[in-house]
Structure formats: structure tokens, C-alpha cells
């Protein structure tokens, strides 16, 4: 029996790094300090696994599946490489390399999560911090369109709420938590203040807050369903904070306004920095979607939606993003790694994915593997393979290999390299 301490969790963007995992006879037997989702990931990682490489649902040797994948990607006109966010950074770099080799497009899951955040931050900048700073300093924490009580289960405990820090020694008692949401959630109940905003009206509320912080009087009695007195009170509270932070989620990026909502949030935070220190951090979902953006940027200059068809990288979200590529029927093959677009894309575009030859690298059976022509089982990064992942605040942490994968099962990076060797001939 071996007990691994300080293990990093490969589920969400919190990358909690204090797990204690017990391994016995090559299997994960127990886990401590984990949230319910993390516990499920480690203890169930052997369940519902893909049993062997397949072509059209028929089991084949790995070499044959690799050959078929290379043929598909080499002979198609407009291959789409998508996913990348639930694996480690070397695999992400290989996926970018493969897209370049195939003259295709590489995109990651941020195009359907925080892609609008990236669009806005490229326009207006970002005042960043680490979760360690938040833990030690934040006395005002605002969750806007994010619900860590369901999606980032230990965020409030480890970093933003209960945690005792150097300048907030009493933890929760020293912090004021505000939750802005369109509906009640576990986070709004835990917060000191719940601001209920009308659906699709976050932009208006952010701008009203920004105007109020600037000292302007609102003529409207309420904005987005929030009375102006409450807006004024919140603006004063924000200005009076010593260290404030906005953790925003898909409530802002997936509703009307999209990137303009983030633009408004950055504007509010910039305005607040005339009064005090204020920052914002996106609540990233997939554990290494931050790495997908970072690696793609250092390889190509751009964080997602990158086209190599001219032999050099071009960037154009809205054109080279996966939903748009599939909606136009432009992609004529796809390599999917570390994601499940058949479960996460609207059915209208998932249908177009089913029409083209798809090569999928995954650990488990998913709707995407079910509609793929070639399926290759891979090791689970952070459990069966090591590597690096980027936390939601941009801090890289090392994932551990705790157990051996099944015989004949390789990491994402190894399988991608095998496909590229075949593609190069």
C-alpha cells in the first residue's frame, strides 16, 4: 500500500493540491480531502473504460487504429482538432503540432465556456491575481454568474470564503461575500448578500454599478431588477474594500451580451482601482482549460480558434471556433481529445460532427466515442499519466502518475505522437 500526499486533482480549475490518495495493488483504494466530484473521478476512473481501439465499432490493434487516424487526418481538406482541456500540457502542445501538420484548425473547449472572456480581455486587459493572494487578502468576494457550490466545490473552503489568511485571520468572519445570480443557489445562500439580477441583464447592472462608482446618480429607480439604493450600497461597499475580487462564471459568457458582459465587468473593476485594489478571475471549468489557452498561445500566438490552412497560424473566433466550423459544414474530419462535444454542443452541430470521420482519444465511453469512426483509449492524466496543468488563476501545477494504465494504453501525448509519425510517413 502506498499513500501519495499533496496530489493535484484533475477535475476543475481549482486544481486542489492537497489530496491524499491510497493506492493498493495498482488500484486507487481511498482518497482524503477530496470533494464529491474529485472522489468520484479517482475512485471510478476504472469504470466504463473503453476496452480497446476500434474502427467503426470493431476492435482493432492499436497500430491499425493509429494508421486509420493518420489516413483520415492526412487526406481531409479541413480537419478540426478540438478539446484539449482535460489533459496535460504536453498533449496539448502535440495537438497543436498535429493541427499544423494537417493544415487544419485547432480549437479548445474555451470556445464554449470562457471564449467570450478571452475576447473581452484581449480588448480591455485584465487585472489578475492568484488564489493564494485571495486567500491571504480578499475581504470582499463577489461571485457573479458563478456557482462554486455546484461547480467548484472546494473553492470557497480553500481560497475565497472560509480560508484563514495572513490579512484575514478569522477567515469567513473577515470576508464579505456577495453573490449575483438570476436564481437562488447554494452560493447565494452562503453569501452575506444575494443580488438577484434579471436574466440577460448583467451588462446593464455592471454598467449601472460602474456609473455609480464614478459618482453618477442613476435616474432609473431600478436596473436589471435591482433597486438603485441597493446598487449604491454595493458600490460603496466595493470602494471601501481593502482587496476586492470578482469571480465570474458562465452566467456572464453564455447569456446575451457574451463578451460585452466581461468588457463591462473589467470596466467596473478598472473603475474600482481608482479607489482600492480590485481584481477579477474567471471560474474555469475543465481543470486544464487554462493550459489549453496558455499552450496554444505560446505555440501559435493565439489562445483558441487557430487555423493553419495557409501554413501559418491565423486567429478568428466566430470563424475558426468549432461550433461555427461545424455549423457551416466546413470541417471534413475531426480529432477530438479530452472532451465530449457530442454531449456539450447543440444537437444541430453535433449532427454535423456525426456526418464526418471522427477520431477520438478518450478514457471512457461517451456520446462522442459512440459516433466516432476511430476510437483510441488513453491513460487518465493526473491518475495514470503525469504532466502539467494550469489552475484558473494561471498557476501551473504538476499532475502525478499514481497507478499504471492498463496494458497497451498510452497517454494522450504518446498516441498523438504515434499518429504524427504515421502522418509524416
Amino acid at each position, binding site marked *: 500500500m502506498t499513500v501519495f500526499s499533496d496530489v493535484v486533482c484533475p477535475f476543475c480549475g481549482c486544481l486542489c493540491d492537497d489530496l491524499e490518495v491510497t493506492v493498493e495493488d495498482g488500484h486507487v483504494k481511498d482518497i482524503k480531502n477530496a470533494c*464529491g466530484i474529485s472522489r468520484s473521478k479517482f475512485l471510478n476512473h476504472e469504470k466504463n473504460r473503453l476496452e480497446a481501439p476500434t474502427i467503426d465499432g470493431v476492435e482493432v490493434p492499436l497500430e491499425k487504429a493509429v494508421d486509420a487516424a493518420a489516413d483520415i487526418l492526412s487526406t481531409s481538406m479541413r480537419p478540426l482538432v478540438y478539446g484539449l482541456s482535460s489533459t496535460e500540457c504536453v498533449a496539448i502542445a502535440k495537438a497543436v503540432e498535429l493541427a499544423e501538420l494537417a493544415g487544419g484548425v485547432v480549437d479548445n473547449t474555451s470556445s464554449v465556456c470562457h471564449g467570450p472572456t478571452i475576447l473581452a480581455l484581449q480588448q480591455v486587459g485584465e487585472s489578475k491575481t492568484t488564489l493564494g493572494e485571495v486567500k491571504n487578502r480578499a475581504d470582499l468576494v463577489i461571485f457573479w454568474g458563478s456557482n462554486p457550490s455546484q461547480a467548484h466545490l472546494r473553492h470557497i473552503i480553500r481560497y475565497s470564503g472560509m480560508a484563514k489568511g495572513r490579512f484575514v485571520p478569522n477567515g469567513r468572519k473577515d470576508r464579505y461575500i456577495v453573490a449575483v445570480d438570476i*436564481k437562488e443557489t447554494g452560493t447565494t445562500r452562503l453569501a452575506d448578500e444575494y443580488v438577484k439580477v434579471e436574466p440577460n441583464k448583467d451588462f446593464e447592472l455592471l454598467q449601472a454599478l460602474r456609473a455609480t462608482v464614478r459618482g453618477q446618480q442613476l435616474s432609473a429607480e431600478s436596473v436589471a431588477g435591482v433597486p438603485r439604493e441597493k446598487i449604491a450600497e454595493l458600490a460603496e461597499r466595493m470602494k471601501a474594500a481593502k482587496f476586492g475580487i470578482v469571480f465570474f462564471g458562465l*452566467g456572464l459568457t*453564455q447569456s446575451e451580451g*457574451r463578451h460585452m458582459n466581461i468588457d463591462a465587468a473589467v470596466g467596473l473593476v478598472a473603475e474600482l482601482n481608482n479607489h482600492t485594489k480590485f481584481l477579477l478571475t474567471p471560474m474555469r471549468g475543465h481543470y486544464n482549460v487554462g493550459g489549453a489557452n496558455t499552450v496554444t498561445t505560446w505555440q501559435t500566438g493565439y489562445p483558441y480558434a487557430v487555423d493553419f490552412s495557409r501554413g501559418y497560424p491565423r486567429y478568428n473566433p466566430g470563424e475558426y471556433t468549432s461550433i461555427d466550423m461545424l455549423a457551416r459544414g466546413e470541417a471534413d474530419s475531426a480529432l477530438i481529445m479530452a472532451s465530449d462535444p457530442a454531449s456539450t454542443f*447543440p*444537437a444541430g452541430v453535433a449532427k454535423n460532427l*456525426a*456526418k464526418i470521420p471522427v477520431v477520438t482519444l478518450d478514457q471512457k465511453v461517451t456520446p462522442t466515442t459512440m459516433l466516432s469512426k476511430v476510437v483510441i483509449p488513453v491513460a487518465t492524466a493526473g491518475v495514470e499519466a503525469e504532466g502539467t496543468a494550469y489552475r484558473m488563476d494561471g498557476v501551473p501545477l504538476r499532475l502525478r502518475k499514481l497507478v499504471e494504465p492498463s496494458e497497451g494504453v498510452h497517454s494522450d501525448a504518446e498516441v498523438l505522437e504515434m499518429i504524427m509519425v504515421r502522418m509524416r510517413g
Partner: protein
Amino acid sequence: MAKHKVTLVSGRTAQQGVGLEEGKTSDNYVKSVNHVQLCPEDAAKIKLKEGDTVSVETRHGSVVVNWRPSKELGSGMVFFPYGPWANQVYGYETEGTGMPLFKGIEATVAPAKGKVKSIDDLVKSLGGNKK
């Protein structure tokens, strides 16, 4: 029965996270995403009983799912956990951003007569199930 107009919001749940780590074909995952949540008052208004199925419809499509009461929701709002069932009613227009709308969508709900499709049937309806 008249269709009841609502605002549809999708999102993550912890149950979905636990389920997907068991596997997308596991009962726990399927149960975590093949339902919508609405407030008890709205459920009573459209005469939904426990065990009934409900039809959710937008201008992009419709789907039959299970339902659960939720006191977190106000009248006129329906929560749909992210997943293959929710994706039946979302459109793919991104307005040049790459991102479709998954939250704040006009929809209707009504009691349904049909059954909830299995994950195999949903993949078949996408045009291919090579499992």
C-alpha cells in the same frame, strides 16, 4: 394543455460532475442531466405530477425529459443541467463569437405523453451510433 412560457437556464450541477466521472453512460450521469427543474407553483399550474414527463420546446427544437421541483427557482424559470438532452433545444448561432446561448432562452414547457429518450437513442438521432 397550454404551453407554459418560461426562461430556460442551463448550468452545471455537482451531481452531474459526480455522474460524468462514473461515465457518460452510467445511470447516475443520465439521471443527473435528463431532467429539468422548475418551481412547485409552476409545476402545479401546468398540472405536472410526480413521475410525469415534460416537453421542453424552443425555436431550435424540443425534447421530452423528467422533471424535479426546485425551490431555488422563481416562477417562469426552468433550469436544465448541461448535457445531451438540454442540447436538443439550443441553437448554434454564435453571432461571430464562437459561443451559442445556453442561458436566458425563451422556451415553453408542457406535460408530455412521450418517454424520455435513452443516451443510445439520442446518439442515434444525431446520425450515428457505432458503439
